[in-house]
């Protein structure tokens, strides 16, 4: 390998090492700043609170002053959205059993405990469990059993006749028939393990309007968002209210269970008929910087929590009825929360969200500017490329992204589709100006230093272009791989020149090499006279100019 290729390989290797380390360092710096900003917001706006009393059947038409003050609160937890988005946490959530994306729905390391999972090779849902039996000698024992469920039924052994689930999602609530939606078969199923039966719902029309993604417990990053139901034990007239008439929580007490659609719509599934009842309830993202909020898809919010409200009206025979739903959502950057309460017909009856201007108030403004400064240290090419897929990023992708920046100001502005595309593009590019100023400064330094140490024009152009495109990592690479020479003064122009080059890179003059002229005297092999101790006269060597 010649020296040029050897050097190129070294530059590339150094560039990759510098890029990985700089990007990782910048990631943690952004993460630290994001945590500080999030926690500052957490203390500035502790929670979102919603009070309501109207949606309940027995209160309609009554004096609203007699309504009980029911309050729901939602708040982001400190540090949590950022931690929850880390790749390690996401890996655990997606791969570990019982995680939201796992095919293992119930599991224990102990082989004697229940285990429920989808076997992809069989295409069936397998339920391994234990039951207490009595042996022939009358002693109690534990027997293991396995059930295999397909779309056509349940059996004790895997059987082709049971059919195959293609892409199932399940309701994780353990205390009722297992509700399954198969995205391949586009219908709901209810698996009754005790009765060994499977009920099928009607096939959903394949017009793209129904794309369920979650059933029953509708939650995302539940460790990031805390929703609480607070009920006063007295109404406004001071009368005592029995507390057990309401239930707000992830599990509905009625025959209707919520189903989240990929569009963000929340439908209701009738668990008796397995029919999907279309609703007007939606996930709604809170307004934040460069985002006006509004209807959002599940991947557009960092966290959400849907809690069905069940009520048991007096005189209703103790039967729980569906009384609405509360929906809380956390913005992408984890700083704003929105909380909506829907009535049984899907109309919003109460709503509240974090106010927006916190970004520019005292303290918050400084942290926001620091975030912009850190983004400006990112390689400009990756910052620029963050513009194009900005609306495609999953909300928490920014918490584990090294190259593209889904939560940068540029990407936030890119998602804010208000004006014409060309206007939006240039409005987003405004956020690249600090990064461009920085890389131009670095490129100028590289060019000046390259000229000083004698890089050729082509080499300097390549380094300047590399610095403009890749920014800080390219500059560090240059500093690590530039020729390390100590310039000497050129005899012709007086400027510093590299001793390893034949010509001065400033004036082009060669080295002034002294011409070696042999002396006129010679040492001959005759012995010197013993009496003559004085040295023989020698002709002085002629100077090079002679």
């Amino acid at each position, binding site marked *: 390998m010649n020296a040029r290729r*050897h050097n190129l*390989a*070294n530059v*590339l*290797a*150094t*560039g*990759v*090492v510098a890029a*990985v*380390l700089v990007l*990782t*360092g910048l*990631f*943690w710096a952004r993460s630290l700043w994001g945590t500080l900003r999030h926690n500052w917001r957490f203390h500035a706006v502790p929670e979102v609170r919603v009070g309501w009393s109207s949606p309940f059947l027995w209160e309609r038409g009554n004096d609203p002053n007699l309504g009980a003050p029911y309050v729901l609160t939602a708040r982001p937890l400190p540090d949590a959205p950022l931690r929850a988005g*880390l*790749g*390690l*946490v*996401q*890996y*655990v959530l997606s*791969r*570990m*059993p019982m995680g939201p994306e*796992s*095919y*293992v729905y119930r*599991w224990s*390391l*102990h*082989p004697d405990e229940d*285990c429920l*999972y989808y*076997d*992809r*090779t069989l295409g069936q849902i397998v339920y*391994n469990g234990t039951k207490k039996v009595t042996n022939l000698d009358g002693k109690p024992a534990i027997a293991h059993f396995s059930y295999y469920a397909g779309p056509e039924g349940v059996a004790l052994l895997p059987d082709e006749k049971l059919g195959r689930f293609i892409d199932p999602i399940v309701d994780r609530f353990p205390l009722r028939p297992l509700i399954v939606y198969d995205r391949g078969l586009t219908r709901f199923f209810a698996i009754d393990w005790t009765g060994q039966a499977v009920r099928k719902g009607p096939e959903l029309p394949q017009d793209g309007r129904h794309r369920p993604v979650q059933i029953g417990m509708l939650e995302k990053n539940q460790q990031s968002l805390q929703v609480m139901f607070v009920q006063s034990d007295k109404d406004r007239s001071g009368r005592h209210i029995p507390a057990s008439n309401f239930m707000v929580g992830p599990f509905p007490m009625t025959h209707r269970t919520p189903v989240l659609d990929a569009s963000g719509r929340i439908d209701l599934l009738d668990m008796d008929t397995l029919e999907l009842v279309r609703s007007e309830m939606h996930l709604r993202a809170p307004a934040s910087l460069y985002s006006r909020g509004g209807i959002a898809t599940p991947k557009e919010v960092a966290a959400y929590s849907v809690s069905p409200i069940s009520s048991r009206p007096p005189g209703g025979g103790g039967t729980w009825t569906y009384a609405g739903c509360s929906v809380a959502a956390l913005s992408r950057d984890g700083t704003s929360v929105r909380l909506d309460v829907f009535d049984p017909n899907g109309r919003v009856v109460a709503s509240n969200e974090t106010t927006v201007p916190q970004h520019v108030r005292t303290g918050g403004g400084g942290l926001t500017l620091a975030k912009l400064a850190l983004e400006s240290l990112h390689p400009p090419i990756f910052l620029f490329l963050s513009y194009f897929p900005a609306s495609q990023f999953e909300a928490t992708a920014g918490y*584990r992204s*090294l190259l593209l920046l889904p939560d940068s100001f540029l990407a936030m502005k890119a998602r804010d589709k208000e004006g014409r595309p060309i206007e939006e593009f240039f409005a987003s590019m405004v956020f690249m100006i600090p990064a461009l100023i920085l890389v131009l400064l670095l490129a100028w330094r590289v060019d000046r230093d390259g000229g000083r140490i004698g890089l050729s024009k082509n080499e300097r152009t390549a380094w300047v272009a590399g610095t403009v495109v890749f920014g800080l990592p390219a500059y560090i690479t240059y500093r690590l791989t530039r020729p390390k020479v100590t310039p000497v003064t050129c005899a012709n122009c007086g400027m510093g020149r590299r001793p390893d080059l034949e010509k001065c890179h400033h004036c082009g003059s060669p080295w002034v090499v002294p011409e070696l002229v042999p002396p006129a005297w010679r040492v001959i092999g005759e012995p010197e006279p013993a009496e003559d101790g004085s040295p023989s006269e020698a002709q002085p060597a002629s100077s090079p100019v002679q």
Partner: protein
Amino acid sequence: MLTLIRREIQDNLVYALAPCAVSAMCIGAMIYASFVGVEVAMPAIICSTLLLLASFVGFSILGAAQMYGDRARRISPLLSTLAVTRHRILAARVLVGILAVLLATVPVLATAVILLRMFAPPLEFYRRMVVEIFLTAVLMGTACYSIGLLVGWTTNRAWLILGNFLLLTLCVSLMGVKGFGPEVMLLLLVFIAAVWGRTWHKFTSASL
């Protein structure tokens, strides 16, 4: 080549064997956890996980010791006077490092697989997780070792310690950023190749 490898192991015997001791402790903790239950053995599991992370530091120290020792005692200039090239010296060094990483991780993997088969329900998700975590750990160990090689080629002790600590922290934190999936494996592979490229250039172009 074998002579060079043997010599490298003899010169850095402590650093090469320390990760194996850590590996043995991890295996002990895993076996203990299998018999007494995860909840009871949680302190032992946490300790062994921390020790496994410490073994990444051990790999880095091994790399740094190899290069720093060479630079300080001028081993490679001496060897270059014999019928050995610098490429071979570096290759022998890297092979020893990889061997140390594998010695520390493969027994842990084998034990994990055996114990899961013996004690846990036979589910599909184990396999992929075990393979992904194992491969990420091997690549991370190799990356840490490579950082040691890169930083160790110096005569400045302050840079040796601080640089090693800083780069190691950044490198290991990649696991936190990206988890254990294919993405981090690809990133680590590219990083390792680049560090080796840089080390090879520095080592082979150094003056005698």
